C-alpha cells in the first residue's frame, strides 16, 4: 500500500472523511478501481426508450463539442477511460485501474481487454495515445484544451504495452483521473485511425450503436451485441431534438417521450409539482460567475466589489430562482459538495450596512454608474435584474445589456468578447467533479477566461500548490486559503451552485445522468 493510500484510509478511520468522501478520494487514486457500478434496479429488457434532448448546435465532432445537445449525443456510443458518477466516485470504464507515482506527475492506466469499436477494431493503448494527443493539440481546435492546457501536452501519453498507457503530466496533478473521465466530456475514446467522421458512424465502444442520425431532427441507437459489459436493457433508444424546453415538457406530459435530458427550474415549475413525473435531481457544481473587473473604474477597489457581494440575498435567490434546488455559493469555485472544500470559511451573507460603509470608505458614497452585460440563457436575465436591484440599494446604478450567447461570448478573446471585456458580467460554468478547471482559467493571472482581469501572484501560487497536492488534508488547507483570498478580493461573485434535473415518465426506470447533461440509458426500462 502506498503512503497516499494509507493516508486516505487513516483519514477515514479517524472520522475526518465520511464514507462518501472516502469513496471519492480512494477512487481518485485508483484504490477502488475494482469498484462496480451501482447496482441498477433491472427492468424488463427490449424496450424502446424515447428521449427529448436539446438540439446539437453544430457538427457532432468529439474534439469540439461543447454544448448540452452535442455532449448528450457523444456518450450514447462513446465511452471514457473512467466514469465519473453522479456521486463523484470514479468507476472503471475502458480503464480498469490507475495509479500515480509518488508526486502524481505520472499516472499509469491499465486498459480493459476484449473491447471492440463498433466497426470491429480492437481497442488498445494506441487508441488512447491518439485520442489524448488529439485532445491536447492546440492545432486541432480541441475544446478539451480548456481542461488539459498546462496539464497534459501532445506526446505526454505513452504506450507501455497493448493494454497499458502512461500519462506524463506537465505538472504534478493529484486529481488527474477526473481529467480523463466522463467529467471531460470530449474525452471519449476514438480509434487511432479516426478520420473525423464521427457524425457519420458514431464509432465508439459503448453499449449502443448508431441506427440513424438526422442533424437538427433526432437520432436512434440500437443495442450493441458485441459490447464488453452487460448488454443494454433497451433494444433501441430514440432521441428527438428540440430547441426549447417548453415543447419538451409538453412531449413528456403527452407521453410522446419517456425522458427529458435536462430541465431547468425556470419554466418547469409545473413539471416539478406533477406527481406523475419522476424527477432525477442530483447535486452538481454548475454555477454562475458574476465577474467584477478588477483593473478599471470604481470596481478596481476591492471594497466596492465586496460591497456588491454583500448586497445579494442568496437564500432568497435560491428560493426564488431554484425553489431550493441549489446550494449557497461563497464566491469561490469550491462547491460545498467537494471533499476538499474548507467548510470552516464563513459564508458571506447579506449585510447592507457593511456594504454602505465599504462604499463610503472607497469614496463612492453617492454610488456610480456601470453596465452589466450577460447572456440570455435560463435564469441568467433574472439574476441580472436581481443584481441590478441589489446594487441599487447602495447607490450603484447598473444598466443591463442582455445579449444572445453568441454575441456575449464573441470570439472568446480579450478585446473581442463582451464576456471578457465587460465591467460586470454573468457567465455560466458547467459541472466538474473537482474544482481544478474552474480554479484555473477564470482566475489565474494568465487565465484564458479571466473576465475579472484579476491578477494575484499569491493566488497563482496557491492554485499551483492545490493542483499538485496529492493528499486530501493538504488540498483542504490550500482550499481554505484560496477561499479566504477570493472572499477578500472578490473578483467574482458565485451566488449559488444548482442541481442537475432530469425528468422521466412514471414508468421509466434505470436512467442515469451526470451533472454535465450526459444521459446513460443502458439500464433504462419501461415498466
Amino acid at each position, binding site marked *: 500500500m502506498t503512503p497516499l493510500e494509507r493516508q486516505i484510509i487513516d483519514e477515514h478511520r479517524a472520522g475526518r472523511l465520511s464514507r462518501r468522501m472516502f469513496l471519492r478520494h480512494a477512487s481518485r487514486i485508483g484504490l477502488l478501481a475494482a469498484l462496480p457500478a451501482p447496482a441498477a434496479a433491472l427492468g424488463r429488457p427490449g424496450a424502446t426508450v424515447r428521449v427529448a434532448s436539446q438540439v446539437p448546435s453544430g457538427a457532432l465532432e468529439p474534439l469540439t463539442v461543447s454544448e448540452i445537445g452535442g455532449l448528450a449525443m457523444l456518450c450514447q456510443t462513446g465511452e471514457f477511460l473512467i466514469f465519473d458518477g453522479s456521486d463523484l466516485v470514479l468507476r472503471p470504464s475502458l480503464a480498469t485501474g490507475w495509479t500515480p507515482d509518488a508526486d502524481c506527475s505520472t499516472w499509469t492506466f491499465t486498459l480493459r481487454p476484449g473491447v471492440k469499436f463498433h466497426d470491429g477494431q480492437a481497442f488498445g493503448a494506441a487508441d488512447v495515445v491518439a485520442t489524448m494527443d488529439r485532445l491536447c493539440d492546440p492545432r486541432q481546435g480541441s475544446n478539451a484544451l480548456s481542461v488539459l492546457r498546462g496539464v497534459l501536452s501532445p506526446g505526454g501519453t505513452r504506450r507501455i504495452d497493448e493494454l497499458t498507457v502512461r500519462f506524463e503530466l506537465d505538472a504534478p496533478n493529484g486529481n488527474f483521473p477526473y481529467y480523463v473521465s466522463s467529467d471531460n466530456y470530449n474525452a471519449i475514446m476514438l480509434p487511432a485511425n479516426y478520420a473525423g467522421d464521427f457524425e457519420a458512424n458514431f464509432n465508439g465502444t459503448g453499449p449502443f450503436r448508431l441506427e440513424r442520425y438526422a442533424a437538427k431532427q433526432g437520432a436512434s441507437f440500437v443495442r450493441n451485441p458485441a459490447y464488453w459489459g452487460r448488454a443494454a436493457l433497451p433494444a433501441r433508444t430514440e432521441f428527438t431534438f428540440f430547441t426549447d424546453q417548453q415543447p419538451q415538457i*409538453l412531449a413528456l*406530459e403527452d407521453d410522446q417521450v419517456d425522458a427529458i435530458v435536462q430541465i431547468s427550474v425556470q*419554466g418547469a415549475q*409545473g413539471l416539478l*409539482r406533477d406527481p406523475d413525473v419522476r424527477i432525477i435531481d442530483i447535486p452538481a457544481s454548475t454555477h454562475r460567475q458574476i465577474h467584477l473587473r478588477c483593473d478599471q473604474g470604481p470596481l478596481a477597489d476591492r471594497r466596492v466589489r465586496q460591497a456588491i457581494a454583500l448586497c445579494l440575498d442568496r437564500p432568497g435567490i435560491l*428560493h*426564488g430562482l431554484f425553489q431550493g434546488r441549489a446550494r449557497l455559493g461563497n464566491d469561490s469555485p469550491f462547491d460545498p459538495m467537494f471533499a476538499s472544500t474548507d467548510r470552516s470559511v464563513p459564508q458571506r451573507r447579506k449585510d447592507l450596512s457593511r456594504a454602505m460603509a465599504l462604499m463610503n470608505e472607497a469614496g463612492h458614497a453617492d454610488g456610480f454608474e456601470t453596465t452589466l452585460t450577460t447572456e440570455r440563457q435560463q435564469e441568467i436575465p433574472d439574476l441580472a435584474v436581481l443584481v441590478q436591484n441589489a446594487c441599487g440599494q447602495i447607490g450603484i446604478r447598473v444598466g*443591463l445589456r442582455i445579449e444572445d450567447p453568441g454575441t456575449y461570448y464573441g470570439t472568446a478573446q480579450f478585446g473581442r468578447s463582451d464576456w471578457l471585456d465587460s465591467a460586470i458580467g454573468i457567465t455560466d460554468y458547467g459541472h466538474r467533479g473537482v474544482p481544478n478547471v474552474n480554479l484555473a482559467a477564470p482566475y489565474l493571472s494568465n487565465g484564458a477566461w479571466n473576465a475579472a482581469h484579476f491578477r494575484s501572484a499569491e493566488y497563482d501560487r496557491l492554485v499551483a500548490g492545490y493542483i499538485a497536492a496529492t493528499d486530501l488534508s493538504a488540498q483542504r488547507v490550500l482550499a481554505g486559503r484560496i477561499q479566504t483570498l477570493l472572499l477578500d478580493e472578490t473578483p467574482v461573485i458565485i451566488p449559488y451552485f444548482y442541481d442537475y434535473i432530469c425528468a422521466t415518465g412514471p414508468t421509466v426506470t434505470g436512467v442515469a445522468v451526470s451533472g454535465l447533461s450526459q444521459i446513460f440509458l443502458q439500464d433504462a426500462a419501461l415498466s
Partner: protein
Amino acid sequence: MTQKLFGSFSRKRTSFLFGLLVLAFWVACAFVGPFVVPQDPYADDLMNALAPPSAEHWFGTDQIGRDVFSRVIAGARPILSVAPAATFLAALCGTMLGLVTGYAGGWVDTVLSRLVEVILALPLIVVALLVLVALGPSSLNATLVIALVFTPIIARTVRSAVLAECKLDYVPAAQLRDETALHIMFVEILPNVLPPIVVEVTVRLGYAIFTVASLSFLGFGIQPPSPDWGLSIAENYGLIVGGYGWTVGFAALATASLVIGVNLVAEGLQDAAR
C-alpha cells in the same frame, strides 16, 4: 379637413369611441402609471415569487416576485414611447419621400419607387432583426428600425395620393404662378393629402405596437428590467405550462387591447376620410 374627416363619423361612432377610450386609458397609464401603481414595478420579492392573484397582488407576481399589475400598468410607457415615435418618424420621412416621388415623376420617381419596392419586398421582422443585430438591441435602435421599415409603406400611400392631386387644376395653376416645387408640394398638395396620411399613420401605429412587442419578445427591442409587455411575455411564457398563466396573460391582454383600440380608432378615421 376636420369636417371631411368626421363628416361620416356617426356610422361607426360606438366602436370608434370604444377604441378611443381604450387608447386614452393606456395613454394615461403611460403618463401617470408608474406614479400611481400600488407597488414598485421593478422591486423583486424573492420569497413571494409566482404568487397567484390576490388582494395584495391583483394580477399575482412573476418569477422574481415583481407585482404583475404594477408592471402591466407601467408597461404602457415603453411601448407607447417607441411605437408612436417610430410611426411619427416613418410618417415624416414617408410623407416627404411620397411627395417628392409623386410630384417630381420621371427618373426621380422611377429610382426612388424601385428602392421603396425593394425594401417592401423584404419581410419586415427579418429586416428589423438584421439591423438590430448589427446595431445592438435598444429602445432607440428599435424606434429607428421600425421607422425605417414603415417609411416605404407610408411613402407609397402618399405617392398615390399626390399623383391624383397633381391632375387637379390647382397644381398647374400654382406652377403657372411660378411657385417653387417645395411650395407646391408642402403648401398646395400636402394639406389635401393629409386625410389618407392620418389614416395610414393610425393603421401603422397598430402595426408598430405589434412590431415593438415582437422585437422585445425576441430580445431585440426594449431591454430588461423594463415592464414592457412583449418583454414580460418573453420572460415568463415558459411558466404557462406550469399553471402560472397570470405572469403572461395580463401582458398579452394589454397588448391585444391596445392594438384593438388603435385599430378601432383607425377604422373610424378611415370611414370618416371616405
